[in-house]
């Protein structure tokens, strides 16, 4: 036991059950590596991308795949591959910022609602109910129309439309720990309500929220694509995968690669986030512990045993 204290952070992470469980599955490792690669691609886009993503070449538009342009060029003669590489920036930004906005607002509302209770709780939760009664896409569309286009506005629209789920989860968690002994103990020790909430209640809401956050990263990226398709996405010329797919729709029958390639990029990123989100949920869920045995290794024993 004492040994753990001496171990470095990295060792502790390695010994962390959650991470070991998660990365015990090869496919999750693959997904995590893919995400990492994409993040690196996004960060180092200027180094990696073969062309300037916004550089027109008006006499060289809609060319198919070639040695110069691996994925061809789009309606403005821009290199599709370079735009996909830069598009990763937008997708990750939207994913992160939207999730951050929604989780911060949502968790705050959930905490207030759960801790305060009474009228405050009812008011907040009724508003959340009302927001949830409107399908998320329509809500985002609505907010998008109000806020106008632009990267941050799109993030905000998507973020706000995802607030209710965080508020609900957090409130549920708060209610389940509010009367736990250690919280009561905190109150008895004279901790202020705010302190008590932040120190004792809040950390217990985190794990459920972290799972939701991982899962909704993918959701936010899809939402951006959907808004782009409906003409409420990020303003051009910024390369965004969603906008590239909907822009490529016009050329579906002749140059389908313009629409297909960014769609596949979206799919891969969302897939990776979803898989990691699932794995994280499974790893954090005490109820699921033990169901994911790596039976293959010990199959010989099973035959002997049964």
């Amino acid at each position, binding site marked *: 036991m004492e040994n753990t204290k001496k171990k470095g952070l990295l060792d502790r992470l390695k010994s962390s*059950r959650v991470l*070991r*469980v998660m990365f*015990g599955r090869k496919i999750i490792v693959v997904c995590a590596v893919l995400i990492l690669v994409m993040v690196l691609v996004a960060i180092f886009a200027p180094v990696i991308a073969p062309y300037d993503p916004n550089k027109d070449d008006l006499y060289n538009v809609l060319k198919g795949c070639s040695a110069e342009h691996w994925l061809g060029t789009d309606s403005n003669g821009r290199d599709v591959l370079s735009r996909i590489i830069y598009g990763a920036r937008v997708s990750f930004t939207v994913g992160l910022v939207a999730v951050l906005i929604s989780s911060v607002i949502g968790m705050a509302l959930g905490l207030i609602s759960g801790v305060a209770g009474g009228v405050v709780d009812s008011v907040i939760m009724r508003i959340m109910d009302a927001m949830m009664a409107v399908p998320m896409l329509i809500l985002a569309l609505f907010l998008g129309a109000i806020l106008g286009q632009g990267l941050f506005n799109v993030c905000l629209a998507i973020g706000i439309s995802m607030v209710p789920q965080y508020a609900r989860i957090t409130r549920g968690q708060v209610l389940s720990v509010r009367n736990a002994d250690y919280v009561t103990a905190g109150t008895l020790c004279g901790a202020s309500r705010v302190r008590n909430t932040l120190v004792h209640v809040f950390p217990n809401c985190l794990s459920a929220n972290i799972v939701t956050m991982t899962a909704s990263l993918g959701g936010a990226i899809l939402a951006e694509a959907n808004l782009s398709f409906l003409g409420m996405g990020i303003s051009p010329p910024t390369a965004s995968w969603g906008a590239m797919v909907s822009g490529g729709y016009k050329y579906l029958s002749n140059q389908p690669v313009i629409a297909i390639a960014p769609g596949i990029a979206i799919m891969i990123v969302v897939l990776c986030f979803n898989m990691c989100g699932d794995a994280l949920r499974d790893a954090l869920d005490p109820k699921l*512990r*033990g*169901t*994911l*045995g*790596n*039976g293959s*290794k*010990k199959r010989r*024993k*099973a035959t*002997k*045993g*049964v």
Partner: protein
Amino acid sequence: MSEKEKLLKIQDLSVEYDTEISTVYAVNGLDMELGYGETLGLVGETGAGKTSTALSIIQLLPEGIGFVTSGSIQLDGVDMLNTPEETIRKMRGSTVSMIFQDPMSALNPVMTVGAQIMEVLKIHHPEQSRAQLEARVDEMMELVGIPAKRKTEYPHQFSGGMKQRIVIAVALACEPKLILADEPTTALDVTIQAQMLGLINDLQKRLNTAMILITHDLGVVAQTCEKVMVMYAGEAIEYGTAEDIFETDQRHPYTQGLFNAIPKLNEECDRLEAIEGMMADPTQKPKGCRFADRCKYATAECRAQQPMRQVGPTHYIRCRLFDPMQSAR
């Protein structure tokens, strides 16, 4: 006793669990015998391997995770480890049945209690008519002290004690030869505990059923069991009749520790004596006495493999402190 008379015979049983991150050695080389109608108390702290032992007897170790890695289990003359699943399935409920720790979750929430009793009867007595089976359901319910008319209700409509009665009714419905009772009273409050133990004991006697009672409560064992086995970290460390364990000065240091942890009314005592330290890491294969790390008598010798030593006619202890010769009274 001759081999034939034994209901259950376990030899050198080892059980392992493979989890995502490690292998847990839950039971290590366990031997056990039980005659028809006998009651054995299986005592030990959480993680000692009691439940795993029971689950391997009824062959319900978690699929894909828990495996019997060595040994043999003979139940009512059937080799449980080398018999087709279908045969074993038919034995479950009729030859051997199990009562689980938590009556709250042991009953299917979406089936009426009557249907759950009926289910086990129907499986093992398909030849009987519906009316006969219904009658038997009523009988079982009355037997465990619940009015038969409540059989159309759902589990959530019963209190914890009532649910446990139903679980017992399910377990006993086909008059099995062996009941595995896994801490049947832990989840219940104390007043009901006594009732429940009385009920189980009573029914067991009436039906001449053998029972393995798993518990960490020595008091319960004293009340109900003829034989006691103390387990520690997957091994049996002491085995004997109730008298051997309760009325003797020869005890395994761990067993002694368990006794010391029980408050005694007739002695002045500022503080209960707890057993120092934590249980041995179950993910490590045992070497020597598993209790050595926590044992105040431990010496370098304890690091070697310790055999069971017979210290009385029916009393066995796995500890070098006791000389087998000396015990021949």
